[in-house]
Structures are given as C-alpha cells and as structure tokens.
C-alpha cells in the first residue's frame, strides 16, 4: 500500500485527497479513483458524479484550491462504485467571446481523456435529448490479458492495407456473423481476411463519435446518420456503439481483444484518426469538452473569436499549440501502448501542419514530435496530405523520413489510364514503379506512397466501372455532395438495371486490371473492403450518412463474384511471394536493373500520348536467394496488342500467372509457359502478370 493513497480530507460524505497530477483523466487506484484535469483559464473546477444514465448528479465535489498545481486540478475520491458511475467536470472562468474565452460553469464537460464514454452505448438508439449531459465519461479498467501480444514488428514493406468500416463490414444479414456490425463481429471475419491475404486492416474512425450528429430524416421513414464518424467526441475512447458489449461498457476489452486476435493472425491494425476538428462544431455547436476547458487554445479562431473552418466541419483543432500537441501525442501513445495498434492514418493531415493562425509551417512541431516519439517509433504514420482549406501537400508533406501519404495522384493517374485516356503511360509507369517523381526515395524510404485506386471516400471499384456519374440523391443534398472528378467509366451502360452480359464481363475485367496494377506497384497497396468481390454503393460516391444497404457490404456478392475474389487473392499472393515487389529483395539478378519499363518491344518504353501499353519488370531474388522476375503487362487500349517480354537469363523462362482477359479463368490453376519466340497478345483492356520459372 502506498503511503500517499490514504484520504486526507472529507467533503460531505466523500473521503478525498490531492491526486496524481501527472495522470490525466480518471484512473482506478487502490481504494479510490484519481481524477485529473487541466485548464489554463479556469478559476475553479468541480467534479460531477452521476449514477449511470441518470440526469442529475449525486455529487458535486469542488476541487479545493490546495488540489491544484499550475493549471492542473487533481483529486482522489475514495470508495466509489466505479463501474456504475459517470463523471464530468464543471469549470468556472471568463466568458469573452472575442478573446476566445467561452467558459460556462453551467455546462458539465466530458473528460477529454475519458477512456470509455457512455451516452451512445447502442448504435442508433435514440438518445434522451432532455439530458443535458450527453457524452458521459466513465472509469475504465485498463488492465488486459494480452497473453504476450505486442504491436506487430513485421516491416512496413509487407503492408497490404484493407480499409474497412467496423459497422458496414458485417452489419448486413449476409455477413453471417453473430455480433453484426461490431468489433466482435469483425473477429468472426478474420479467417476470411486471412484467406484473402491482406496484412493490415485500416479502420474508419473508431474513437467515440455521435452517429446522431447532423442526423436527418431521409424522407422515406429512415434516418441519415453520421455513419462514417469523422467527428470525434472523445480521443481516448473506442466507440461504444461499435462494441457488441458497449451496453455493458466493455468496449475497451472488446476492442483490445479484436487487436489481439488480428495480431495472432498476422494482421496489423491501423486507425483512421481525426485530429483536424472535433464534434463541437462552430459557435452554434455543442459544448462537449474543449469549448469549456480552453476554447482559445484548442481551436484556431478568427480575431473576432469565430472558428476557422479548414476542415469543412465547423472548427479547426489548433494542432500546433503546445497543449493540443501534447493531447494528440498522449492520445496516439495511449492507443499504441494500451491497445497495441500498429499505426494511424491521419484524416486531412495537412491541418496538422498549420500554425495557430492557420498558416502552413515548414517544420510543424506536432509532426516532428510524432515522427520521433519513442513509443510511436515503429508505428505506421500515414497522412491524407491535404485539407479542406486548399492546402495540398502530396509529395511535400513534412515527413521527416517517417510519414507515408495517401497518394492521390496514383489514384487519379491509374483511373484515367485504365479508362483509356491518352497521355498517361509515362505517369502510370512512374506510379507503378514507386512514384519516385513525387517521393524522393533517399528522403522518404520505400513506403512513402500508399497506393490506392479506391477508398471509402468516392466510388467503390465496381462503381468506378459501372457509373459515369455519381448518384448521391439519397444523401439529401439534391445530388450536389461528393466529388465530381471521379475519372470513372461505366463501360457503356450506366448502373446495373438490365445490365448486358458483355458489359458485366468488361467491368469484371476492368476490376481485375485495377487489382493487378495495385498489387504489382511499389509502395504500400490499399484495398477498399468489398472491392475484392465487387461491392456496389449503387453509384453513391459519398455515402457518409448512409447507415443501410448502400454502405453495408453485401456478402452475397462474394458468392456471385467468386472470380473477382479469386483474382484479388491471387495477386495478393503473387505480391507476397516475390520480395522484389515489396522492395525486400536481397540483391538483383546479374545484369538486370531492379525495375525496368517496357513497351510492345522489350526495353523500349513508348511514352508518346497515344501509347496505352506498359510493361514493367521487377528483377530480384526470391526468399531462397535465387533469381526472381515478375512482369506486368498492361494494355489499356480498346484493341489487343502483342508484346515482347524481356529476355530472361538462360536457365529461366516466363510463365503467365493471370490474364484478366480470360473471364472466369483469369487466374491460371497452373501457370502457363510462354513461348519466348513469339509475341504475347494482350487482349483489349487487359492485364497479364508473368513470373519466372526454371526451364524444364
């Protein structure tokens, strides 16, 4: 027993003592619970305690002045029934809008360090709107039996990322899992993910958010929700509504178990995190935490005290303020240290490099801190290197040799090339060979480019080849929301109604072409979940509010489109079997460059505008140290073309592993030998992948 953990004072019936000032938020200690909160502008602070779900508190305990160091208030309260308590803080301070001070002692504030939050325990359950305290901090047991688990130590080169929405992944009946739409449900799908072969799952935001934020009637008796969740309520709490056990406040255990299970199957966990803004909105938005703590520190404000809106979501978190920076660092360290997550993807990350006035910085302290933090040392850090305020930093994101980026240029170039636009062969050759024109490998390393053709934001891969135009009417904005620069092509038929078989065949071929290019490109590939079996969003390219069949994966398509799944699985396996594709090859075969670009003739790349044929050869060593070659031949033209594959060393010959032109048979059961004396005819709009084999 520690000698500093006994009560020293009483307040009413409560035994209390000064707390652990360095331990933010709430923490269970022997005999009691420690509560710590900081606010530089606070005159005083009260701890407010509620029985679970009750509107009125059962206790209001002011922090005595002697329980304050600097601007930190800390108190241990003894003998609390900590599983059945919710708590918040009330802070007294100045209200002066122009100066950015918006203290309001009538508001009960969520602990910004709350480890679990109640109030939205069951997804979609209508909250009691008369309750003034909507998001309620709870006290978490943060021990967990990890059974030896740690963040995975496999190199980033091996990443094959699968971007998924926790709820949408298994919510549909067709998922067949017991705990649909939850962390536990995702565990039930791990065998599927393993079979597919991906090595990391990137989850759309799982920090507590309010699915009812901005909720509207959809006009058909349903509701449009904040489904994606890019609007954080609490940065340290997993979303209760994503946990089957959220109604028992066990979301922390459930999510930790998910991480442990994924790790046991060799799958890393990457979290999509939103630090550019919070759910507090602008001056008309709710008080959750920060507005009542230190509004003018946490947010970038105009000289008149209004909220800058670089996020497009009402406010902008003041990321390079030292206090906010520490909060973000604390948060990321917490998720790595306590949840064993393997990395993060930062939404609208360009904001993380803006100063307190909103100007981009050359050397942003936050990004630098993250790049060099000891706990985050091996964590994957991925930036979405732009923001809604017009700052576009793809290739220029302050990376410190540590950060990877979503390569938006990869997406656009590959899409345009695949649909048949002219003048893109050179650009696509660069994208496949690692985008070194964008990411200088000397400074940025092997894994700077996260290559993707689709992500949650935009068309699914099926829809990319099924719709010329977005169809967002269901989102309630008259179809005006969502991007217009989709570079999509419907293959000659808009949508799926009365779809002719030949168009469907072409769409499947286009999907396979995309998959082959994505998995054969240097950098880190990212697949949108469901693309591997042709999931559709019915042409909706912005279903952020669609908590229904538009967004939920329809697993029936997996049966229907087995050819797509088989193809994805194959190209993933090819990537994993050839170290050179991950830049992990130990050496190159004598006389061959590691990467070479070809045209219809070997060693002669044609960069002219009307050329649509690209061959890329990767030359390395396989895991047993022998020479290993991979060739991808792409014909984006609407006519077939013959290509000469580069000659191999004498003891090796080419074999074709996949050919997207062959429909259901695109994946060869046994790779087929290629006659090196003849051209290989690549069909119209088709892709082949060949590998080297020993001459028989």
């Amino acid at each position, binding site marked *: 027993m520690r000698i500093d953990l006994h009560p020293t004072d009483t307040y009413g019936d409560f035994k209390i003592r000064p707390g652990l000032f360095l331990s933010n938020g709430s923490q269970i200690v022997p005999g009691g619970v420690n509560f710590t909160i900081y606010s530089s502008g606070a005159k005083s602070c009260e701890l407010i305690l509620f029985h679970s779900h009750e509107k009125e508190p059962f206790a209001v305990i002011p922090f005595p002045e002697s329980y304050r160091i600097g601007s930190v208030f800390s108190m241990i309260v003894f003998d609390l029934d900590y*599983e059945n308590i919710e708590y918040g803080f009330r802070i007294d301070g100045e209200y002066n809008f122009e100066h950015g001070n918006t203290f309001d002692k009538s508001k009960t504030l969520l602990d910004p360090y709350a480890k679990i939050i109640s109030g939205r325990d069951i997804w979609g359950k209508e909250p009691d709107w008369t309750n003034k305290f909507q998001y309620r901090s709870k006290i978490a047991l943060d021990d967990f039996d990890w059974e030896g688990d740690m963040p995975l130590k496999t190199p980033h080169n091996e990443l094959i990322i699968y971007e998924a929405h926790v709820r949408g992944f298994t919510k549909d009946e067709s998922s067949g899992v017991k705990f649909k739409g939850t962390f*536990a449900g995702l565990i039930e799908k791990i065998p599927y993910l393993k079979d597919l072969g991906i090595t990391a799952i990137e989850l759309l935001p799982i920090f507590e958010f309010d699915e009812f934020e901005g909720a509207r009637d959809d006009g058909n008796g349903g509701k449009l929700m904040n489904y994606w969740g890019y609007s954080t309520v609490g940065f340290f709490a997993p979303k209760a509504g994503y946990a089957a056990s959220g109604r*028992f406040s066990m979301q922390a*255990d459930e999510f930790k178990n998910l991480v442990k299970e994924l790790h046991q199957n060799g799958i890393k966990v990457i979290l999509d995190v939103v630090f550019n803004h919070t759910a507090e909105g602008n001056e008309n938005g709710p008080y959750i935490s920060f507005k009542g703590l230190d509004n003018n520190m946490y947010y970038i404000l105009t000289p008149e005290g209004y909220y800058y809106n670089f996020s497009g979501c009402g406010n902008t978190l003041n990321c390079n303020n030292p206090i906010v920076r520490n909060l973000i660092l604390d948060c990321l360290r917490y998720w790595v240290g306590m949840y064993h997550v393997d990395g993060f993807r930062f939404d609208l990350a360009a904001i993380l490099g803006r100063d307190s006035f909103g100007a981009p910085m050359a050397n942003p302290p936050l990004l630098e801190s993250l790049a060099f933090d000891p706990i985050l040392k091996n964590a994957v850090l991925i930036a979405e290197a732009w923001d809604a305020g017009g700052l576009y930093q793809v290739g220029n994101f302050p990376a410190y040799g540590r950060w990877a980026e979503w390569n938006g240029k990869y997406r656009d170039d590959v899409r345009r090339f695949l649909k048949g636009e002219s003048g893109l062969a050179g650009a696509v050759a660069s994208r496949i060979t690692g985008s070194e024109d964008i990411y200088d490998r000397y400074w940025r390393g092997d894994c700077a480019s996260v290559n993707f053709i689709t992500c949650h934001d935009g068309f699914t891969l099926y829809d990319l080849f099924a719709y010329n135009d977005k169809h967002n009417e269901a989102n309630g904005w008259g179809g005006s929301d969502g991007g217009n620069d989709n570079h999509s092509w419907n293959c000659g038929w808009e949508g799926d109604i009365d779809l002719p078989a030949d168009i469907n065949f072409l769409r499947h071929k286009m999907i396979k072409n995309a998959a082959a290019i994505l998995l054969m490109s240097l950098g880190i590939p990212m697949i949108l979940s469901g693309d591997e079996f042709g999931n559709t969003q019915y042409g909706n390219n912005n279903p952020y509010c669609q908590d229904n069949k538009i967004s939920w994966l329809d697993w029936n398509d997996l049966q229907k489109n087995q050819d797509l799944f088989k193809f994805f699985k194959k190209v993933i396996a090819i990537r994993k079997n050839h170290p050179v594709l991950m830049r992990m090859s130990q050496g190159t075969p004598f006389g061959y460059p590691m990467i070479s670009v070809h045209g219809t003739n070997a060693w002669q790349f044609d960069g002219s505008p009307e050329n649509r044929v690209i061959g890329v050869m990767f030359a390395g060593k396989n895991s047993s140290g022998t020479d290993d070659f991979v060739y991808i031949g792409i014909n984006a033209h609407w006519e077939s073309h013959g290509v000469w594959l580069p000659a191999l060393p004498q003891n090796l010959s080419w074999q074709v592993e996949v050919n997207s032109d062959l429909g259901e048979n695109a994946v060869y059961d046994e790779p087929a030998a290629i006659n090196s004396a003849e051209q290989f005819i690549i069909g119209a709009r088709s892709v082949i992948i060949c590998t080297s084999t020993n001459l028989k």
Partner: protein
Amino acid sequence: MNIKVERDDNIKIISLDGQLDVASSDNARDEVISLLDGKPTIISLAKVSYVSSSGLRALLMIAKTAKAKKINMVYAAAIDEVIDVFEMTGFIKMLRCVKTIEDAEKALG
C-alpha cells in the same frame, strides 16, 4: 454474491449466486481461490445473472490461479447472456467453459 460448496468428494463443485460486479468481484475471487484445494473443481455460474468488467477479471484470475496450482478446473452452466459477454470480449478463449455440470464432470474426466 453467495458462494457455496455444493459438493466435495472426488470433485468439488462451487456455485456462485448473484451479480459478479465491482461490489462483489474482489471478495468472490478471494473466496473461490481460498476454496481451491487441489481437487478437480467445477465452478457453477448457473445462478450468476450478470458479469461486469471486474467480474470478468475475477473469473480470469481464478482460472489463472487454478492453472498455476495445477488444479483441473472448469466453469459450467453460465446463462446465455453471460456466455455472450464472454464471447464479445474474448474471455471465452481464456476461460474453460462448458454448458452443463454433466459436461463439466466429463471434461474433468
């Protein structure tokens, strides 16, 4: 929480009755552990209506203690709601759990 030794011959059956939550779990854990005397043991959860986070930890600590003492021990007869909680949180994999007391007797061989 009521803890009773229902049977104590070649097999010991300990039954728990009530809610296993923050108010009861520490005591329940200590009491059950004190009853582990080396015999094959069945812990009946048939009358446990709810298991909270701290309750899960108590059950895990009992199981770990039994394992450390090389005691053959199994949980039995938990109601569906409790089994669901074990499944959702993954504790099901760390707790040896069977459906009925008969199954438990078989499991203990």
